[in-house]
């Protein structure tokens, strides 16, 4: 099938490319743009390893055709760091609280948490767990991921982080 021209912004940069309509956004990011931070972990839109931020929404980029994102704005893990190049509070929080092990779910998890904290800057633990239920992790058991997000939420709010008593 013939290719179509697609124009969109990825991590602040305007991209103009010819793609097959069936090219999934995840493949466009990974293969055409070499942004290999977002990962593929399943075939049925469950695992969330491919999560990116599209027009202010967390979406599973494996379930979106690139053409659907035309004229849109995508943020991937590669674009989450602060404008001055320092790590985003989430990236710091994940390291501080041991919120990752193999690292494979981490880009999707952080990108999702990025939008979650914009939806709700002061989430409870329950809200965090519900908020990341579209992102599977096989290594951490989620407990330290929750702490990582709480750590980041505190930092973004300028508040001290209090680790809950075990």
């Amino acid at each position: 099938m013939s290719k179509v021209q697609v124009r969109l912004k990825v991590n602040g940069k305007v991209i103009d490319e010819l793609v097959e309509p069936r090219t999934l956004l995840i493949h466009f990011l990974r293969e055409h743009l070499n942004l290999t931070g977002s990962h593929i972990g399943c075939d049925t839109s469950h695992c969330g390893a491919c999560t990116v931020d599209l027009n202010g929404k967390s979406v599973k980029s494996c379930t979106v055709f690139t053409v659907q994102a035309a004229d849109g704005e995508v943020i991937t893990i590669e674009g989450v760091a602060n404008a001055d190049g320092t790590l985003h509070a989430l990236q710091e929080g994940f390291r501080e609280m041991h919120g990752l092990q193999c690292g494979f779910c981490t880009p999707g998890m952080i990108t999702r948490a990025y939008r979650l904290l914009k939806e709700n800057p002061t989430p409870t633990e329950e809200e965090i767990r519900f908020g990341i239920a579209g992102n599977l992790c096989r290594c951490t058991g989620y407990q330290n991921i929750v702490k990582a997000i709480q750590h980041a939420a505190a930092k973004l709010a300028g508040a001290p982080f209090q680790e809950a008593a075990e």
Partner: protein
Amino acid sequence: MIPGSFAYHRPNSIKEAISLLADLGEDARVLAGGHSLIPMMKLRLASPDHLVDLGAINDLKGVRADGADIVIGAMATQHELIASELLGSKLPLLRETSLLIADPQVRYMGTLGGNVANGDPGNDMPAVMMCLGASYQVVGKSGERKIAARDFYKGAYDTALSTGEIVTAIRIPVPPPGHGFAYEKLKRKVGDYATAAAAVLLTINSGKVATCSIGLTNVADTPLWAEQAGKILVGSTLDAATVTKAAAAAEAITSPASDNHGPAYYRTKMSGVMLTRALIRAKARAS
């Protein structure tokens, strides 16, 4: 994991979409949120030659009041339903249901129209629409028509839509203030289809049930409107004995598949349990 090839169309109006669908015929599928269709295409269970993306059609969006009804555009996403203050105050049953559908990312993209129109018996909104007495605005090349949700579902992936028709809006009569409602869904984990689920809408007058409407999800090859079960409860105080009778009546119309959720016998019983729990919560909310 990789879908087959197709030609992509992105009309800007309903008229353009209908015209395209008329020309393309059976080889075309409509793309709403994509979170039912695209997974099927990736598994090559669906291989349309043409996709007509409704995402650019503004007339399909939005949630608005229209007289005694609320009208929701077919392309309104689950996320937008949850965020809508109008729905939160007038139709809280919808928000409760939306929060039980899939996960945050899927809710950002999945649409109400997609959820009600594709005939997947696992979807949650169809039974809720039947419970609410909603109707679907349908547009095709021969014009517009209105189809009651209770008349829409014929079998698995088999609806009253003809080729080339799309649902453009969902019209829901606003329940009276003080109504009781609940959507009770048994599932193994977030993101799963229901093992069984029940939607309840009721009103109570002087301690007795004045109206009661019940929908059941994923316990047959279509969503079910448990009309008889609802009738049994009218005039009762939702006492245990009448609730048990109603649950039995609901179970009697189910014919679930035996699958990884469990055997059919179990799922039927769960529809009764979900209904019972939904009635308890609906009663607590009614005033």
